[in-house]
């Protein structure tokens, strides 16, 4: 597995606070991964299409607007619909504990709250993506 890991980072919905997403993107890139930053105002459809086009191993979505229960299940549904269920999905942002539980049950691999050291995210992604190979 000499191929570099490919990651798609993006924001869904209208929430424009993107520093966290960019910081995580940089940390993953610094750790040797190829990171595609999709930017703001993405729909679940746009995210999933970009993920497939770019052949990424993992999607990371940042959200602070509280609309995760609308968007995350939709991303998972579309991944399955396009037969791309092997693309992992992680998220970060302000997500209440009870939602974290149900989103993980649906298939989101991990949800990182604010104040998470980037090293924790990098280690998690490396671990997650090496297991499946």
């Amino acid at each position, binding site marked *: 597995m000499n191929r570099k890991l490919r990651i798609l980072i993006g924001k869904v919905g209208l929430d424009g606070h993107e*520093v966290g997403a960019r910081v995580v993107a940089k940390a993953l890139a610094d750790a040797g991964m190829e990171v595609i930053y999709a930017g703001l105002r993405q729909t679940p459809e746009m995210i999933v299409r970009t993920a497939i086009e770019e052949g990424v191993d993992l999607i990371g979505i940042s959200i602070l607007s509280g*609309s995760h229960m609308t968007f995350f299940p939709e991303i998972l549904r579309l991944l399955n619909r396009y037969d791309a269920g092997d693309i992992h999905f992680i998220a970060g942002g302000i997500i209440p504990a009870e939602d974290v539980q149900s989103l993980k049950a649906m298939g989101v691999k991990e949800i990182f709250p604010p*104040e998470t050291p980037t*090293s924790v995210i990098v280690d998690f992604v490396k671990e997650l993506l090496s297991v499946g190979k």
Partner: protein
Amino acid sequence: MGDQSKPKGFEEIQKAWEEQCLGPALEARPERREKFLTDIGLKIERIYTPSDLERIDFNCREDLGFPGQYPFTRGIDPAMYRNNPWIIRAYSGFGEPKLCNERYKKLIAWGADEIVMAVDLPTQVGYDSDHLMAKGEVGKVGVAVDTLRDMEILFEDIPLNTLRRVSMLGNSFGPTALALFIALGEKQGLKPDDFVVDLQNDILKEYVARGTYIFPVRPSVRVTADVVGYCARQARHWYPSTLCANHINAAGAGSTKAAAFAMANGVCYIDRLLGSGYKIDEIAPLFSMFLDERADFFVAICHFRAARKVWARIMKDRFKAQDPRSMALKITAYSHGGETLLEPINNIARITLAALAYVLGGVQFLYNASYDEVLGTPTEEAAKIAVRIQQILAQELGIANTVDPLGGSYFIETLTSQIEKQILEEFEKVEAKGGAVSAIEQGYYLAAIMDGANARQRSFDRGERVSVGVNKWKTETKIPLGAFRIDPALEKMQVERLNKVKKERNGKRVQEALAYVRETAGGEGNLVPPTLEAVRAYATIGEICDVLRGVFGEYQAREYFGKGGR
């Protein structure tokens, strides 16, 4: 210098102290850090003395002066809070207007002077509640507003003239935000003279931080400037534009660069207005600034003092302003920044101290975060505490009884002078790049923001930046539940209200008004009058913005990090 007299032989005395007193103490117990560095890169010294004032060539008359006079270091009012207490703002909004109206009435009953409407994201980017992009976002981070009807409900039984100010951000659609208040006033039987409107209406920072833009950069400058131009002639006591350093700092730039960038953004709007025939003293007093420093208590105090000096100088030297009101920088601040999700009650202490710094720095308009805001929409109790903290600061402990209480301190004056120099240098760098729009287009602002954001994250990861209960003395791991949730059924309710308004309004009048907006946007006229016509006719924010999208286009922000990142 001269007025801050230093006793004879002071250097020798200090040297002796260092050798006989300090030296042994440090030998016995070293300092807790090698260097005490601030977020803005300035080193904090062990002690400040008259020698520091000598080093910065401190001049009591020119650097400090008197409050209410150039360069306004000590404040913009001669007696400050003794006769003009700062305005207690409450930033609030969630769900749909009826629900929100109840909260507003409570905030006013608790003593809030100004209601700042927090509107939801679809509203902020000009989508109606029934738009495809609005799905799942209606009423989430603020209240949904589609038409004037929503404003009427929001302010039912709240006459605008009973508030010291009323506000919404309106960054991407300033003329519509302004028109909504003018038209709401009309519905309440009030003229613009009777009340005070305050808008953020600063679009340029949205392209580098916060992200609620609609149109491309250049037409957006006009949209922002038109609001100021309109008020300059029709409502001179309003606050049509608040130049925001806050979001630029929050995103990572650091307070110094953030203030410099925000000032450069202001200069861009002013240049445009001067180009349209306004005089500097006609428009400059209508701007205020939203400053921010959240990493260091004393830097925050000095930041405000320094920013006032820099702004006064820009207005006087660059724009040749004559009226002191053009040079006196009115400051808004928001007490927040270090709040944590873990042990959120601790945030009350953080917010209180942030607010105290801003008061000591001479703020005019202040609002506090609610301690639970990091978890979601504030609960009623938390919103009340946010107001109470300000009232305690204002009245209980003598904090507001003298002007610029820390003025003359060796530390405060040294730091103020250093920050002043930093802001001015950063401002000049932006000017050298061709001003705000060029600097944004060249990616200069964003690069500064990302450098700072990454540096902050590194210092947090290494434990240098302490967050109590999070990366030090951590005992809790469970993030509490956000106690207050928005009922998803509200989205449906809001869409129904929107449909009802559309059915009941005069369609022909709406179409005519929208055509007037289109025609004006295509020419050079001020956008406020046609927008006001459209708002009065109950055109929706989305309809007005769609017309402008048709004329100006939309901003495309797609960007690739590319291989290896940046």
